[in-house]
């Protein structure tokens, strides 16, 4: 450990003799201009360029394409599904609009939250033919972003029978598609189902019976 006096001498580095007693506007503004170019323009440009070059797909919004190459959405953005031939995601306070992302911001004590959840729970119970106490909690809670692309594996399994019936395929074929849509299966996070990927694989595999059946459940919101 150096002695205190040593530290103090080496400290100066800053000249000790002439102490600066004033701060000028011109240094402040010139410094600001230099830093704005370095930090506000050069840094984002450099990291964005290098990032886009190293990871072009992720940098561009993780877009998904169908076999014909058409962009069908982003892996990271939930879409709205109303057709009974599709798996349905979590409630969204933003209508899955990525440009106006939002949570519900309803407090647990707010009657509006209870009303919304009650309506959602009854819709789901009717659609899937189950009682409300069988519904996983993620299906009646709005996410923080309003575009949460995931549901729990239980929430997906709850919907298998209905999807299979509407698409007129056996349940095992639908269940087989869950596994490939599973994400976060590694050491971190808990496994979740990506709804858009799951539905896209349904459409791809069983295109004849897409969600455009002629008896859509008009109770679905």
């Amino acid at each position, binding site marked *: 450990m150096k002695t205190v006096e040593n530290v103090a001498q080496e*400290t*100066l580095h800053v000249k000790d003799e002439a102490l600066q007693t004033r701060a000028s506007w011109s240094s402040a503004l010139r410094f600001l201009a230099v830093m704005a170019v370095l930090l506000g323009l050069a840094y984002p440009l450099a990291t964005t360029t290098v990032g886009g070059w190293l990871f072009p797909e992720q940098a561009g919004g993780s877009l998904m394409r169908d076999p014909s190459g058409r962009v069908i959405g982003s892996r990271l953005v939930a879409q*709205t599904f109303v057709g009974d031939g599709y798996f349905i995601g979590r409630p969204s306070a933003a209508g899955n609009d990525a*440009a106006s992302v939002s*949570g519900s*911001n309803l407090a647990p004590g707010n009657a509006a939250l209870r009303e919304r959840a*009650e309506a959602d729970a009854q819709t789901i119970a009717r659609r899937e033919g189950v009682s409300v106490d069988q519904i996983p909690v993620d299906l009646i809670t709005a996410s923080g972003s309003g575009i949460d692309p995931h549901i729990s594996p239980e929430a997906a399994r709850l919907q298998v029978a209905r999807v299979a019936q509407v698409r007129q395929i056996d349940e095992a074929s639908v269940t087989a598609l869950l596994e490939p849509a599973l994400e976060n299966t590694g050491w971190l996070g*808990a496994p979740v189902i990506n709804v858009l990927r799951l*539905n896209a694989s349904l459409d791809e595999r069983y295109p004849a019976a897409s969600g455009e059946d002629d008896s859509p459940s008009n109770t679905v919101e």
Partner: protein
Amino acid sequence: MNDMIAIYALVALLGVPLGLYMGRALGSRRTRMDALFAVIEAPIYRLAGIDSHQSMTWQAYALAILKLHAGLILLAWLVFMFQGVLPLNPDGIAGMPWDTALHTAVSFATNTNQQHYSGQAQLSHLSQTLAIVTLQFLTPATGLAVLVAIARTLLVKRGASVLKGVGNYYQDLTRSVVRVLLPLAVVVALLLTWQGVPASYQAAPQVEMLDAQVEEVQSIPLGPVASMVAIKQLGTNGGGWYGPNSSVPLENPTPLANVVETASLTLIPVALLFAIALISGRRRLMLGVGAVMLAFSLVSTSVVVYSERMPNAALIELSQPGANLEGKELRFGTDLSALWGSWTTQTSNGSVNAMHDSFNPMGGMMLLMDMFVNVTFGGIGVGLIGFFLYLMLAAFVGSLMVGRAPELFGKPLETREMRWISLAILAQPLVILGLSALTVAMPGAVQNSNPGFHGLSQVLYEFTSAFANNGSGFEGLGDDTPWWNLACVVALLIGRFLPMLVPLAVAGWLAGKRTAPAGRGTLPMDSPAFMGLTAGVIVIVNLLGFLPVLVLGPIAEAAVQGF
């Protein structure tokens, strides 16, 4: 659980070496890295016309801060208002109204990043980078600079008596940016891009929904998001690209991204303990400070994690029993949302990965208390500065208790110092409670989205967040009104500059005083007993100030819901 272990381990493992590196990089001793970084630093000084070796008086240092920040506010304000006609605006976003633009400029210039707008829809790429990212670097760097100035003046043993001035602001600032923040941000930005955070200057892709029955076109806003999210997390900034911040999958796509972003929240505030220990040589003192902070942090995090594991009272018997997932992302679940929530309010960051408005009452209350205390690691630089403010008060109280003339590190604490220290501490309840009361009393001003007790909590949270320079919110509040924008500007400015500059002034004043040799009766400031006293002072001051309003808000809310 694995995620939690990874996050804590990452902070612990990186915090120590980073702190020691920062101590060398920002301390005033010459090091070999000076020549290396001179490649970038020297041109900055030259272009700005600054003699970085000239030490400033504390007054000049403070004045330089205020002048630079006036410039920052003006730059950001103008860019926000005129972004519609400026370049880098592929989505054709219009200029911001003057009051929202002013609030946003002040909010980012005070390291708060409170947002009364939604970034993806209301800011152009130029605003998000030139205005916001610039401020997201320079404001934490300012906190760092002031902390280092205080450390070398007040904390270094007898250093102040040999040193004139507190250092050079522009040198401290430049070093903080070039040697610490910028390299870390580049690494984190690339990690996040790898995980799926957009990095692009393209306009938003327009996508037809897969379900043909849904006749909507989905717009997916992109931008140089990763570069901003990196410094947002590292710099205790918190202002995200998208409105709901890191709950948005584009801003925080995977569990690994969440580990990186959560660890980045606390990394520098924790590392600073080691940096200041190195710079000041007061290792026992910093150990004590760290212990108090860690204790506060663990209590807070435990309460929030427990609270969010409980079911949401509104959803009882509407589904399988489950934790409170309202406002939370499934890929994180409640534990990681609670951990983030408690850390972001402890460190004055203010980014979120879940909506705090929908937290259970006890969890929401803990977040408020974290922001009242605001020194549990705290914002970059200002966390420790705030802790020193409490330490000064504790030294005053403690000296009187043992019957000594009040002193701090051997320097007498006299009327002038104590008057300003008290003002800096008391300003917090005065401003927060005063503005909250005014808002509630004015018809039509509140704009809260929830009825009853939680409605009051929303108002309280907004001003607390502004004063604490946190930036998170109970976001249901309709806060983009002239009243909210201007009232928050007042809280932001006082909350930033008073608690930061008063300790700098005290350091400057004390430096000019004679040191009394330590004797038998001297209060040992690095003793566990004194740290206990300081912790007690922190708890008592905050409970005295805020317990009544907590009873009216979250405590009443919890009581009604039965837990």
